[in-house]
């Protein structure tokens, strides 16, 4: 029973991952992250992702304030936005958030052209995509945690059997 639960959870997780890959939300880099997780760093993926979320939210807030505040004078600080975006691109690509990275790239291109409406659109899409990614990843972690719980409960049984 427990084993079954664990297997089910495992199936759920895989399904979710497949979906995300299929949608282009994640790419191989994410798999690399998973591969880096081992006994020495058992929570590596969740640590990195959480840190990523923390930083990303700051970046998004900065971007929003830079862009929206410029509404009056129409002089948005595109350079600063580009700097933030650079960082966002770096971190997003490092964790394998493919779709988010492409949106950032588009956003950055818009800043280079000082295209305010383009930037606004890009920002909205970025925020939307970010929320989606965050939800999906949280879901993934949730399944993972459950799996771990189930597995922990399972192993003792396993040992007993052995």
């Amino acid at each position, binding site marked *: 029973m427990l084993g079954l639960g664990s297997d089910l959870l495992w199936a759920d997780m895989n399904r979710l991952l497949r979906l995300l890959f299929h949608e282009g939300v994640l790419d191989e880099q994410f798999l690399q992250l998973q591969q880096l997780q081992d006994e020495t760093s058992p929570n590596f993926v969740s640590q990195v992702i959480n840190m990523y979320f923390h930083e990303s939210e700051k970046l998004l807030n900065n971007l929003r304030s830079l862009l929206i505040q410029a509404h009056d004078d129409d002089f948005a600080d595109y350079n600063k936005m580009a700097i933030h975006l650079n960082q966002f*691109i770096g971190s997003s690509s490092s964790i394998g958030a493919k779709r988010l990275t492409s949106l950032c790239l588009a956003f950055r291109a818009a800043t280079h052209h000082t295209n305010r409406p383009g930037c606004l659109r890009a920002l909205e899409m970025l925020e939307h995509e970010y929320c989606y990614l965050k939800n999906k990843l949280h879901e993934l972690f949730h399944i993972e945690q459950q799996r771990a719980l189930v597995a922990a409960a399972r192993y003792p049984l396993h040992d007993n059997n052995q």
Partner: protein
Amino acid sequence: MTMENGVDDGSDQFPKGMRVLAVDDDPTCLMVLETLLRRCQYHVTTTSQAIKALKLLRENKFDLVISDVHMPDMDGFKLLELVGLEMDLPVIMLSANGDTKLVMKGISHGACDYLLKPVRIEELKNIWQHVIRRKKFDSNKTRNSDKPNSEAGNVLGSAGAGNSEQNGKLNKKRKDQDDEEDEEQDNGHDNEDPSAQKKPRVVWSVELHRKFVAAVNQLGIDKAVPKKILDLMNVEKLTRENVASHLQKYRLYLKRISCVANQQANMVAALGSADPSYLRMGSMSGVGHLQALSSSGQFPNNAFRSFPPTGMVSRLNTPTGLNVHGFPSSGAFQLGQSQNLSNSSVEQLKYLSSIVPVNQNSVHGMQVPMGLDPLQNNKGVNPVQNLTTGIDAKTNFPVSNKLPDPHSRVASGAHPPLLGNSNNALMLEARPQDTRRVIEYEDLASSVPSQHSELPFSLLDQGRYSDNWSNAVQSSRIQTGSYPSSESFRQSAIPATDNMASLPLQEGNLSVSSSISLLPNQSYNSLLDTHSQPVILANRTGHVSNNDVPFQGWDDHNQDASYPSNAVCSTVNTVTPVSSAVCHTPINSALHRNLDFNYGDSLQMKRDAVAKLAAKETSLKPHLGNIMNQQKSQQSHFSNNVGSLEDLVSSMMKQVKTSMHYSED
């Protein structure tokens, strides 16, 4: 055999345990990178700040550095340069932006590779090649040569201490050096300096670099060859290859700052003529002083630029009754204004000692102590320092010998201290680059015979700062016979061959009084003009009467310990002497207004010196106080500009303070 040269023994193990320093301001990327590197079995250290990274690099040994390009506290390229210069390690750049221009920039700054984010582990698995490649070379050579230390004979011998591998490496190093000089890299990545050899990793500490620069200056930047530099430096454990690669980097650095230095040098030259000799000139018209000043203003530092020539011109109009005394003070005053100059002299020293700081404060170098107040260009003390290097190309020291362009020379001010010559003050004002003004000054100065011959101008003639300066110093010494205390300066100046001008200036300044003739060239004339102004001002303040005292004071002063510091400073800008002179007379206050004390601390020091002298003249005291205050305020202003300058200045200040009393303030 440990890691350093693990090539022989553990080439198969080498990648493991390779010490990598990872720098990235993004914590997510840094964490991923660290984990990836650990997975490659490297020994990883991480930091998110570039400054901290440098500190770590200095304190510990690393084999490789991976750094992000965009960082908030320091540009990644700058870090790259610094690491290459100081530690000579391979640096890999990392960025989310793969723009060709950026990649090109990275390579041209010496990165041995440029990776794009997201970094994959496959790429990281290869980075050890950058390190091992060099070692491989060495190890190959080592295998070929079996002599344990004999090979090292020509090199340091210390590195490997009997390590045949070391020896081999040394040989290899030499050979590699040649290869690298030809830019034959193993792979296209190693575009860094040829000195990629790292055998015994030579860390170019401040001290070492100072010696290096001193040696280069002594030899002359054009004639500096690694072998001679090595001999002059007389440092154990240093190979010719180390020196060669460092020299290469140094030259690049000089080139970079030379442009700025040129401008500053001109100014400095103008200022530089404010030698004490002008003071002597006493009777010399303002013009003459100007010349003197101009000669002293030879400081290569662009800081001279800071003195608006216009100011000087206006000064010239003032009564020529400026006595020499007054002049010097004004000159000094002006110099003081160009705190930068003084700072620069200090900085110069500093610069010499370490190129790294200079790099960072390249502006500093440009600022010639000449800081003729009118010229607000002070970039800060730096110029002087940097200028010394850059001046090489640009400073046109009017020195009689070589003024290619008299006007410009004056400006370049590499000339030693304007020393009190009012002319000097004027000179200081002259912008090095402002040849127009120089011409104006010239007119004024035309009346003044080139008595400056004595002036440091001769010294100033520093086509190449290093060469000229040392020569100039010598010549100035000779010329400034009237400057008894020049001896003291000389000594102090000598060490600062880099400062070059300082020495000559001192002496020149002293002899200013005797001869404005120091200004052999027109440039001097122009300088004189500038000088005359300050001098005139001095007169106006009515302190001219101090004539005798100040000069005397100068003599005494020269002997002061502070002088040496001035000497040092003077190289940077002739200001130092002037500043002290300035302090002397009440004119200073007048001058203050006009002159912009770009010289930071050096000026302060001079003030101290001057203050001392001023002590002799009670009348001066009140003025000095003013000046000092003004100078101080100016200094602080300038000191802000240059970080390293402050250090220099403070060190110089200490020198001065020990010798003098700053009673006024």
